[in-house]
């Protein structure tokens, strides 16, 4: 008995595989079919890549615009490849795990002797920098240097230094402090003192991000260029004075200086005797690893939005979501339509009447207002992410099955009138047998075409809802466009923000509609032959 069951199962699998292969071949024989299969294949691959490469908590990450990695990206950054189109570009470069240049204990012979003579060799920037005199780096000092080439005539947006410390239990985290000092040496030889701060090891263990400061160099900068301006007005756009020289005495404009920049980071350890900290570092009990990031004006394959989010990642996340939403809604709609249509057509009578009146009502309901209402209600109720999307999808399904039911019913009616159904009945076939052996198999090819046709509807509806202001909290293509819409004043000038998600939406719906057309031309003659 089990042997036989297995045989049956295998033959079903073989039959399905064969029919799948043959229908694929048939689809492939049409040009439109080929195009659609290629696009859908690309979308499936992109979804798989997206699921593998993006972290599982990507939606939360996407929403946290005040946190890394987004804060470390340029805002409104161009895609990197626009440099091949002649757009001047400053690259975003991350220097991870910067190698230690020099480390030594700097102690002045005379306490009033600041800076000590020894320091000139360790940190030549100290003396020649345009800036208020930095606090005297006495004690154990580490120096890191990176160089960055500015190719295009534009201003990089910022320089961010991320400090992350590791410490063993031997170390008292609150007593040791680190003073990071940052100097930027420009191609024209001017060195700007761009940062100083003081952090306990405890804070560094949690990791900190430091950005450029203007007040440290601004007064000397004004002196140096003989500017007729104030610190405040000079510092309104911080990156301009750092990466450019003023065009006139009022510093109303700046000209970017291209060439090689050098960013020097000095870490001064205080709070413990220099010899002790040196020992701790040597034994690996304390280690501070800095990474320096020059934030240019371009980032990634598709640039960034106004909050620095990588639009390529956002677009990538949209692929699996679009496929899941589209396919599940279409599948549910067709399944309900198929079942109710067959019931309505085959059994007729009062059941038919009830179902048909229900269909009459459903096809007359405009979906968008209802979706808006549901969307607003779940937003008020605090639902976000997949639960919210599932509810929206359920509403879409609940009001979309009318059309399929009408078509399936009329097909069932015409099949039911065929003589062989009559014959099957006369031979004593049960209702279930007739429905499953003779009616449903004939409707399934057509239902498949309808299913494929209705895949894009849900994702287009979701996108529209997002643009109308309903936020389900997942980064979908529609959501990205809605963000652009919310900041239309700047976003519309950023083609890399508006163009790709819409193109993907269009490509997605085109592919499924094209496949639907192909399936229909394959299915239609079969239907007519019967």
């Amino acid at each position, binding site marked *: 008995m089990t042997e036989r069951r297995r045989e049956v199962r295998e033959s079903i699998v073989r039959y399905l595989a064969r029919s799948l292969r043959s229908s694929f071949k048939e689809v492939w024989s049409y040009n439109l079919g080929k195009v659609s299969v290629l696009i859908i294949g690309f979308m499936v691959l992109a979804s798989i890549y997206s699921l593998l490469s993006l972290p599982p908590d990507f939606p939360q990450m996407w929403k946290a615009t005040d946190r890394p990695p987004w804060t470390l990206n340029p805002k409104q950054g161009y895609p990197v490849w626009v440099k091949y189109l002649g757009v001047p570009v400053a690259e975003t470069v991350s220097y991870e795990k910067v190698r230690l240049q020099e480390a030594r204990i700097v102690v002045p012979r005379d306490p009033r002797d600041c800076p000590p003579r020894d320091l000139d060799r360790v940190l030549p920037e100290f003396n020649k920098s345009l800036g208020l005199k930095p606090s005297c780096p006495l004690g154990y000092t580490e120096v890191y240097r990176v160089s960055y080439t500015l190719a295009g005539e534009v201003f990089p947006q910022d320089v961010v230094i991320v400090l992350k410390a590791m410490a063993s239990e031997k170390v008292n985290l609150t007593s040791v402090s680190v003073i990071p000092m940052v100097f930027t040496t420009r191609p024209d030889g001017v060195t700007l003192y761009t940062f100083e701060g003081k952090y306990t090891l405890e804070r560094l263990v949690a990791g900190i991000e430091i950005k450029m400061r203007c007040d440290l160099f601004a007064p000397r900068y004004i002196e140096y260029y003989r500017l007729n301006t104030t610190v405040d007005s000079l510092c309104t756009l911080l990156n301009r004075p750092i990466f450019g020289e003023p065009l006139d005495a009022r510093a109303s404009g700046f000209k970017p200086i291209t060439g090689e920049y050098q960013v020097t980071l000095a870490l001064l350890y205080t709070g413990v005797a220099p010899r002790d900290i040196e020992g701790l570092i040597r034994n690996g009990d304390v280690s501070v690893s800095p990474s320096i990031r020059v934030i240019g004006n371009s980032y990634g394959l598709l640039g960034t939005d106004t909050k620095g989010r990588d639009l390529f990642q956002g677009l990538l996340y949209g692929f699996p979501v679009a496929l899941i939403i589209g396919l599940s809604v279409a599948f549910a709609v067709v399944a309900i339509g198929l079942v109710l249509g067959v019931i309505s057509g085959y059994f007729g009578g009062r059941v038919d009447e009830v179902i048909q009146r229900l269909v*009459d009502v459903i096809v007359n309901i405009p979906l968008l207002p209802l979706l808006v*209402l549901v969307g607003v*209600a779940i937003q008020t109720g605090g639902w976000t992410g997949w639960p919210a999307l599932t509810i929206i999808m359920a509403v879409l399904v609940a009001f979309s099955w009318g059309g399929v039911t009408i078509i399936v019913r009329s097909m069932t009616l015409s099949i039911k009138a065929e003589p062989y159904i009559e014959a099957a009945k006369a031979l004593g076939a049960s209702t279930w047998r007739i429905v499953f052996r003779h009616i449903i198999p004939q409707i399934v090819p057509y239902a498949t075409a309808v299913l494929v046709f209705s895949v894009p509807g849900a994702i287009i509806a979701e996108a529209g809802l997002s643009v109308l202001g309903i936020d389900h909290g997942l980064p979908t293509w529609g959501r990205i*466009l809605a963000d652009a819409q919310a900041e239309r004043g700047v976003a519309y000038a950023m083609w890399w923000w508006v163009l790709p998600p819409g193109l993907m939406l269009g490509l997605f719906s*085109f592919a499924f509609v094209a496949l639907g057309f192909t399936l229909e031309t394959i299915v239609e003659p079969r239907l007519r032959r019967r």
Partner: protein
Amino acid sequence: MPLDRRSLRIIGFRAVTLSVTLILVLIMTAIIVGATGYDRIILDAVVREEVRQYREQLTRPGSELPREEVERLVAEYREYLIRTYGLDKPWYQRSLSLIPKVIVLDLHVSQPEVAGVVGLSTPVKVGDVIAVALPRTILMITIAYAVSAMIAVPLGPFIAYRRGSTLDKGVITYAAVTNAFPVWWIAMLAIALAGFYLGVAPTSYRPIAKLISDLTSNLLSLNMVGLIAVSRDILYYSYLPILVVTFAQLGGWLYSARAVAIRVVSEDYVIAAKARGLSEGRVVRRYVVRVIAGPILTFVILGLAGSIGGYIITETVFDWPGMGLLYYASITAGDSPMVLALVYVTTLVYIAARFILEILYIILDPRVKL
């Protein structure tokens, strides 16, 4: 054109179906807002507004009531309202009481910026705000529909006669492409291209709200000079929206006109007319256009729900101060009474439009048996 009894019966039947639909939508709305607790927000806003009015009445200059007495009366009145609206009862007893208020639009706008969309200020009833916004939306849709119809209906047979030609293929491709992309995205692109990159259209469409009110005031005061200036400005702000909407839907219109016309041009009587030596233009005008108008209307009716949704979103993109912007403003500002009213009015307008189109359909094509 007189309608026979059969047609009237069909129309009556449709009217009943559509009314039932509207009632069902209302009940569903009540369930959605009730089960999710959304109606609490709406009713709280209603109570707040009515209490405010009551307090205003009590403290009107000339009334001699002492302060504590006013407070006591106001508190009493609030209690009374909470009981009336069932805010102390479970939702299924409460939300049904909301339906009559929605039907007559007896709700107040709760957020000032929502009323600001159409240039009004709070306190104002939702019905008054919608009364300003709705005609603007209908105007835009009607213009786009009229332009599309004027282009597609005469052009459809023309394309049908050239089946398989480059023009034919071009039209099919155009229809397929515009069908795939949402209208509102094409609108975004148009603003980006014409506004930001070419600089031939505005980049912000906010001023249109003020211009429309200027237009009405100039019309009322019969100020011709001002009227011409305002009309020119309105044209400057509205040509892109109209162009985009027409561009986006023309593909679908052309495709359906072509599909219907292909069947008609191969009918015997059309071929016979051609054989009699009548010119193509004359055949099309007299024998084809009249016949295809009805079926094209079917496509329009079927596509209406989708296109109304599309327009509402497109309006948001263009800042056109109609229903779409009202939707956007009330969703983002959390103006619950307005959201509820908008849902109701949109459904109502859709159902009414469908009904009118169906009657038109019966008049246009007497063979129709719905």
